């Protein structure tokens, strides 16, 4: 059996790959946690404008420790900064941007993604305190909804599945999945493999995926910067 830990992409590499798809001038919302990392890898010469649900557009980097202004935070409640071009607005206006289709891309984390684009990322369904936040709005608002995720769970179970077993965040909403092993699109109810890391074979990747992987033309080698490994 292959040792995934030695071959899989790091979170930084997955985020880097997602960043390569963000066009110049795109309005982008990055989910709390791992997806926030995408902002670090915006290709030079391309300017993305980041939106955060709590009412800030076009914000700057995190401040130095000790320089935080706790009135200036992102949806993850981390301190951010303003920069030329920043705008503040209230929550209803913020979600008008989201729901109204004004974001070009939303990039979220996932527990499970089904081959029809269903996403489960808010509740494991196992009790505890449910907490949905803005994810259910984001998945139906942005023009393109992408997911960043490990290809499998910590226990090794597929996260890309035939049908989600966990409570859904949204129906048929995900269009692209950046995993630790591959780049997969959701097309007409199927997973379509676009890119995979060279260290894994198609068959091994299929074995780690809970629904059939289709191809549509060449599968490209997914190569990410070594220094992010």
């Amino acid at each position, binding site marked *: 059996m292959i040792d995934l830990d030695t071959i899989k992409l790091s979170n930084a590499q997955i985020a880097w790959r997602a960043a390569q798809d963000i066009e*110049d*001038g795109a*309005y982008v919302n990055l989910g709390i946690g791992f997806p926030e990392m995408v902002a670090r890898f915006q290709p030079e010469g391309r*300017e993305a*404008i980041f*939106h955060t649900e709590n009412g800030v*557009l*076009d914000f700057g980097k995190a401040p130095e420790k000790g320089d935080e202004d706790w009135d200036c935070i992102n949806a993850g409640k981390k301190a951010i900064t*303003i*920069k*030329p*071009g*920043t*705008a*503040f*607005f209230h929550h*209803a*206006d913020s*979600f*008008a*941007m*989201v*729901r*109204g*289709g*004004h*974001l070009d891309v939303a990039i979220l984390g996932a527990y499970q993604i089904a081959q029809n684009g269903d996403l489960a990322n808010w509740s494991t369904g196992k009790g505890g305190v449910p907490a949905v936040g803005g994810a259910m709005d984001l998945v*139906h*608002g942005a023009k393109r909804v992408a997911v960043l995720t490990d290809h499998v769970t910590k226990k090794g179970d597929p996260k890309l599945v035939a049908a989600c077993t966990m409570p859904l965040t949204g129906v048929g909403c995900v269009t692209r999945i950046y995993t630790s092993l591959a780049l997969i699109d959701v097309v007409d109810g199927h997973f379509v493999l676009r890119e995979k890391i060279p260290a894994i074979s198609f068959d091994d990747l299929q074995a780690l995926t809970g629904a059939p992987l289709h191809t549509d033309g060449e599968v490209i080698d997914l190569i990410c910067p070594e220094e992010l490994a």
Partner: protein
Amino acid sequence: MDKTLPSLAEAVAGIPDGATIMIGGFGGSGAPIELIHALIDQGAKDLTVINNNAGNGHVGIAALIEQKRVRKMICSFPRSADPRVFTEAYLAGEIELEIVPQGTLAERIRAGGAGIPAFYTPTSYGTDVANGKAIGTFEGREYVQERWLKADYALIKAEEADPHGNLTYRMAARNFNPVMATAATVTIAQASKIVELGAIDPEHVITPGIFVNHIIEVPNPAQEEVLNREGAVYP
């Protein structure tokens, strides 16, 4: 990223015949006269125009109607004093009219921009304006279901714009402009002044740039009211 276009003509160049266009303003206040006149010069026809009114005098929307470019008006208050360009076209059967109560018009446009396909309002319940619309009862009271309103283009008038399209408005010239900016596929804003990025305080931005596609500087823009008092005619 710089959303600035060099000319009004370029800004409106892509508007095709048959387009639905929201035009900001309430009467003359906030009306993007220069953009409307550029649209007249451009020649697009068979337009559906969404505005609170239906023009005054022989400039702006009235001139667009006078040039027979407008197939349909969606508005709350199309009556105007003499000259009565819309009135005559309407009574001659040359232009369609959809009357929408003013608050419902504003809310339908906001809904279009906010991804809300339908909502319920007490406004117009029991009146002819509600004919044919679904009625919902909530907490023992009846409400009329209204649908969102979107457009292919919005032509709006701002005071300041920065290169990312962040906008401010002057006094009551704000009116429909910020909501229309949110509800069109392509929003084109004329601004009295284009300022450098960062010159607008982030807390004073009224329309964040995400809603704006193109900006054009029009210093000292015309006021419809002043033009009409001068008896101006366009073209």
